[in-house]
C-alpha cells in the first residue's frame, strides 16, 4: 500500500527550492495527500519564484507518477509569506494562484440584474421568476440565470424538464426556454433530488460557465437569481460581471429585514447600484372572508428601503395562487396575467425597467491603459 514515506523517498531525488537540498529534506513540502492512488503534494515557495520553480514542480510530479501504484499525481506550488508562519496548504491540490477572472461584459447582454435576499425563505426565486416574466411581458428579451447552485428552483418554477443541448458551435450550452424566457440552471444538469455538495471554487467556476459558456444570445435583461446570503456566489457575480443593479427581496418582519440590510450592505461594498426593495408576503387576504391579515407585519420593507434611500419597488401579497402556480410551473404572470397578483409583479417589473433604462448609466469601471 502506498504511503507518505514512499512519496517522500521518491522526492529525495529532486533538488528543493534552493537547488541542492533534496526536496524531502528542504522543509518546503507542505502536505501529502493520497486518495485511491491519486497523490497530491503541495510545495511551499515564495510567490516571486513560482515561475522559475516550475521545473522543480514538474520533476517532483514525474517522480511520483513513476512510483508503482500511483494513478495520478498533482504537485502544486503554494505561496509562502516571508517571515510569517506558512499558510496552510490547499490539501488535495489547489491552484498556486487563485484568480478571480477579469470583469467583462457578456456580449449581447445589455443589463444584468441580481435578485437577492439576506436570508432564505422569503420567496426570492418566485419573485425573480415572475419579475423576469413581467419584464418579458413589457416586451423585453429576458434570460434567467439560476445562481442558487445549492437550491436551484428555476426548472420547477418555469416548468422546464430535460437537459440543455449543445449550441451549433459545439462549445456552448443552449439555454432552456419557456414562456419566451431563456433559463439556465444547475437544476437542468443534476437530478432534482440530488444534492450539489461543492466548495466555493466549484461554485465560482460553475457560475462563470453559466455566464460565459451559455449561448444567451441577444438579451435586454439577464435576471440572476442569487442564493440567499452573502457568500461565494454573490461575490463571484459581483466580481466577474458588471452588474447593472440589485433588487432585494424581503418579507416585512424584522428578522428578515435585518438580513435584507446585510444584503444591501454587501452590494454597497462592491459598488453595485441598488435598484430597490420588494416586499414579499406583504399581506394576506383571507380567501373565505376577504379580510386582510398582516401576517409578517406590514410596510417594514418600505421603511427599510426609505432608511437606505433606496426605491421601494412594490408589495406582493402572501397568496395561495402564487404558491400553487409556482409549484406547478405555471407562474402567475403568464397563467393569470389579468389577476391582481400578476399585475403587482408587472408593476414591479415596470419600475425595474425604468430604473435600468431611463436612469443614468451606472458608473462605468475605469479604462485601463498599460503604456
Amino acid at each position, binding site marked *: 500500500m502506498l504511503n507518505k514515506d514512499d512519496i517522500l523517498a521518491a522526492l529525495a531525488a529532486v533538488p528543493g527550492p534552493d537547488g541542492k537540498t533534496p526536496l524531502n529534506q528542504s522543509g518546503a513540502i507542505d502536505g501529502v495527500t493520497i486518495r485511491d492512488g491519486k497523490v497530491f503534494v503541495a510545495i511551499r515557495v515564495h510567490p516571486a519564484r513560482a515561475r522559475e520553480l516550475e521545473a522543480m514542480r514538474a520533476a517532483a510530479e514525474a517522480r511520483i507518477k513513476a512510483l508503482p501504484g500511483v494513478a495520478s499525481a498533482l504537485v502544486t506550488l503554494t505561496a509562502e509569506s516571508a517571515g510569517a508562519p506558512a499558510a496552510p496548504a490547499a490539501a488535495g491540490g489547489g491552484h498556486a494562484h487563485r484568480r478571480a477572472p*477579469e*470583469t467583462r461584459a457578456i456580449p449581447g447582454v445589455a443589463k444584468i440584474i441580481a435578485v437577492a435576499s439576506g436570508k432564505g425563505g422569503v420567496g426570492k426565486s418566485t419573485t425573480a421568476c415572475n419579475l423576469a416574466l413581467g419584464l418579458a411581458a413589457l416586451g423585453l428579451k429576458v434570460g434567467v440565470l439560476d445562481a442558487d447552485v445549492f437550491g436551484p428552483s428555476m426548472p420547477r418554477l418555469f416548468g422546464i424538464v430535460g437537459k440543455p443541448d449543445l449550441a451549433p458551435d459545439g462549445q456552448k450550452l443552449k439555454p432552456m426556454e419557456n414562456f419566451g424566457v431563456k433559463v439556465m440552471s444547475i437544476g437542468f444538469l443534476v437530478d432534482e433530488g440530488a444534492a450539489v455538495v461543492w466548495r466555493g471554487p466549484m461554485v465560482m467556476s460553475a457560475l462563470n460557465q453559466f455566464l460565459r459558456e451559455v449561448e444567451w444570445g441577444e438579451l435586454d435583461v439577464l435576471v440572476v437569481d442569487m442564493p440567499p446570503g452573502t457568500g461565494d456566489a454573490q461575490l463571484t457575480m459581483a466580481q466577474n460581471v458588471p452588474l447593472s443593479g440589485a433588487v432585494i427581496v424581503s418579507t416585512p418582519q424584522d428578522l428578515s429585514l435585518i438580513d435584507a440590510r446585510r444584503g444591501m450592505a454587501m452590494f454597497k461594498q462592491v*459598488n453595485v447600484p441598488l435598484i*430597490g426593495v420588494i416586499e414579499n408576503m406583504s399581506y394576506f387576504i383571507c380567501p373565505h372572508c376577504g379580510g386582510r391579515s398582516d401576517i409578517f407585519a406590514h410596510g417594514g420593507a418600505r421603511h427599510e428601503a426609505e432608511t437606505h434611500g*433606496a426605491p421601494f419597488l412594490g408589495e406582493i401579497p402572501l397568496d395561495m395562487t402564487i404558491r400553487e402556480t409556482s409549484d406547478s410551473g405555471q407562474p402567475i404572470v403568464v397563467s393569470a396575467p389579468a389577476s391582481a397578483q400578476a399585475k403587482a409583479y408587472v408593476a414591479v417589473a415596470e419600475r425595474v425597467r425604468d430604473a435600468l433604462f431611463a436612469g443614468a448609466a451606472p*458608473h462605468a469601471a475605469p479604462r*485601463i491603459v498599460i503604456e
Partner: protein
Amino acid sequence: MVEAASDSTPTELRVRDGGRVLRVSYAGGMTVDIAAERLRAATPSADKSEAPAGVTIVGAETIGNYAARFSFSDGHDTGLYTWKLLRELAEG
C-alpha cells in the same frame, strides 16, 4: 437607483514609465501618480510578503464595479484595490 460610493470611481488607470508608476484619473480632472512600490506596499491582500525594491506593475484589470487588481513583477497579484483604497492612496 442608488449609486454607492461612486464618486471615488476613477475614470482611467494608466500604467506608465515601464510599470513604475500608476496614473489614476478622476472625473473632474484630478490626476495622481502613485509609485508602483507604494502601491505594492499598500496591498490589501492577506499575503503581505515583502516586495523587492524596484518592483513594477506588469498587469492591471478591473474587478466588478468596485476594484482593480494589479500584478506586480514579483508575482504578487492577490490584492484587490477598491476605488476607496485607491482614492486614499491618491490623496496621500
